[in-house]
């Protein structure tokens, strides 16, 4: 069972945070482990996942997309149909209930595309918690609708002007706030990143995606899928889909953002092109220069625009259990158009990376193979960006 007691997945993970936070992480670990064996906590979470967020999500056969590619069958795990429009709500519901259990009246979050920010602001409104979301100035510009939504939901959105003004810097600022207000504040991390126990906990909350998909596969086509495909920024929707299948003979592909191309300086392909280091509390792959300074990532999708990745993905890459590839901005837009035109589903630009890769993969595979794509979010938030480039 991974991670081990110290939060390691082999050499990846750990707790690399200021001492001020160490007791808070211990406290969180204890509270989380207690909640796992607490039947009423689980019942409560299940209730909100079902009645509020809209679980289970369908596993939808993308018939026209499949026909177009002419190969393996493509199924979509429709996380885009969830309340707030992405898989992020699975995690924020879990963590907000935990924050309440721990008696923390204030929650904070970092956000890139704004999906996690909206999902956090939403549960804050739902449960009456004070909420502050840190967001890079660059992202605030490109995700204006989500910023407005968060404000409507009663959250304070704090612009972050340091560094690249994107997700990495928002996370720095959220950690700084947490260090300052640690006694009253619960930090809702949005991905399978950060110090232990976050990567494990977020994975567990997201693992419902794979658990459902596994049952649905048996019911729909009487076997497990041959491939799982999901986009990877920090990696929460991918980890959520993969986790239930780790012990099965199912191939897994994580799709990173190649931006303008992985051989340019403008990409976010951490696992494909990065090296091991420490960022935001854990040891994992990251984009860095020869001096160990973090490099600025680039992707057309704000949610993948991150120079780090969750430690369990680094482990899955090193162990060979999962494969990681990268898809460019241009290809992702092609995926976006394809799904919109052929299936009437407008995907998030993040998920469009996975859609594009799956369509290429399907073409190479025989018709009796099955691919499940995690359609992690819907594309409403990206309409302005797409309008600008198409």
């Amino acid at each position, binding site marked *: 069972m991974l991670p081990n007691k110290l939060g390691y997945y082999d050499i990846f993970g*750990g707790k*690399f*945070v*200021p001492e*001020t*936070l160490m007791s808070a992480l211990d406290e969180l670990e204890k509270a989380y482990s207690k909640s796992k064996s607490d039947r009423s906590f689980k019942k409560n979470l299940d209730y909100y996942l079902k009645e509020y967020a809209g679980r289970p999500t369908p596993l939808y056969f993308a018939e026209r997309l499949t026909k177009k590619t002419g190969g393996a069958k493509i199924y979509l795990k429709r996380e885009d149909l969830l309340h707030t429009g992405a898989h992020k709500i699975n995690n924020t519901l879990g963590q907000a209930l935990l924050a309440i259990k721990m008696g923390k009246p204030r929650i904070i979050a970092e956000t890139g595309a704004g999906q996690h920010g909206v999902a956090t602001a939403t549960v804050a409104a739902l449960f009456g918690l004070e909420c502050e979301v840190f967001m890079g100035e660059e992202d605030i510009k490109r995700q204006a609708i989500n910023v407005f939504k968060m404000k409507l939901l009663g959250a304070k959105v704090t612009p972050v002007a340091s560094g690249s003004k994107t997700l990495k810097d928002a996370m720095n600022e959220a950690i700084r706030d947490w*260090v300052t*207000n640690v*006694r009253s504040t619960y930090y809702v991390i949005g991905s399978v990143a950060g110090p232990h126990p976050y990567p494990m906990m977020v994975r567990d909350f997201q693992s419902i995606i794979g658990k459902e998909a596994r049952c649905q596969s048996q019911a729909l086509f009487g076997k497990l899928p041959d491939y799982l495909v999901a986009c990877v920024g920090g990696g929460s929707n991918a980890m959520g889909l993969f986790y239930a299948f780790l012990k099965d003979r199912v191939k897994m592909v994580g799709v990173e953002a190649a931006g303008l191309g992985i051989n340019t300086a403008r990409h976010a392909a951490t696992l494909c092109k990065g090296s091991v280091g420490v960022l935001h509390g854990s040891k994992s792959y990251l984009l860095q220069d020869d001096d*160990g300074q973090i490099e600025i990532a680039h992707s057309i999708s704000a949610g993948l625009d991150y120079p780090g990745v969750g430690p369990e993905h680094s482990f899955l890459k090193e162990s060979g259990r999962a494969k990681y590839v990268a898809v460019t901005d241009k290809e992702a837009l092609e995926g976006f158009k394809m799904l919109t035109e052929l299936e009437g589903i407008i995907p998030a630009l993040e998920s469009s990376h996975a859609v594009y890769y799956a369509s290429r993969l399907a073409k190479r595979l025989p018709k009796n193979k099955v691919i499940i794509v995690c359609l992690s979010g819907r594309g409403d938030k990206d309409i302005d960006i797409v309008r600008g480039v198409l």
Partner: protein
Amino acid sequence: MNRIDKKFRELKKEKKKAFIAYITAGDPNLATTGKLVIALEKSGADIIELGIPFSDPLADGPTIQAASQRALKSGANLKKIFKTVSAIRKKTDVPLVFMTYCNPVLRYGLPGFFKACGRCGVDGVIIPDLPAEEAGEIIKLGRKNGIATIFLAAPTSTRKRIINIARNSNGFIYYVSLTGVTGARSKLPAEFKSKVKLIKSVTDKPVAVGFGVSSAAQAKEIAGAADGVIVGSAIVKIIGEKNIIPRVSRFARILAKAIHSV
């Protein structure tokens, strides 16, 4: 004996508290850093912390974030900073402590980093995003090369954690005065006194207090309870302005006087 231990021993004999000054190496450039170290020592600093700039300093407030950016812009990196330290070492025996984050050190390579520290005359290392439980190899390499590993204790540290922090620290224990990031504050929480007492009840090693110290009066108050006072942002703020060396020297003299008068 390590220069830090020697310094604390001397100060103890004179019944004085240590004034520990922080600057970011390479801010605004490495030549000035060399001059600032000498100026700070002349103005009464007992130990000098040199920050190695990192792109994502999550334990630092705006002042030191800006200093790190200036230093990175000037092209400072570990290789060049080691060279600067070697040059400084020819002129002074003031104890020098590196303060940085995990990633630049990991990237340089741990064994090589500690060897270079030993060779160039660095006496100690502080890494705020490296808690003692993650630091096994660093503690070993520090001992092997005679470099003090200085860990931080915080207002939220439990007694059990403090015992472990004290055991793994050499040189001194760095008590963080408040829950928060670095940066000058007009007021410090009163709890630091009881926490310093707690640390001193579990160890004989010196305890220095930093984060938030902005004035001579605060420095004096801390010196009354601890073995050393660390001042960073309040000095670094001047470095971001004009006429750096005379003004840093003047401020350092005021701080030194306040701390040494206790």
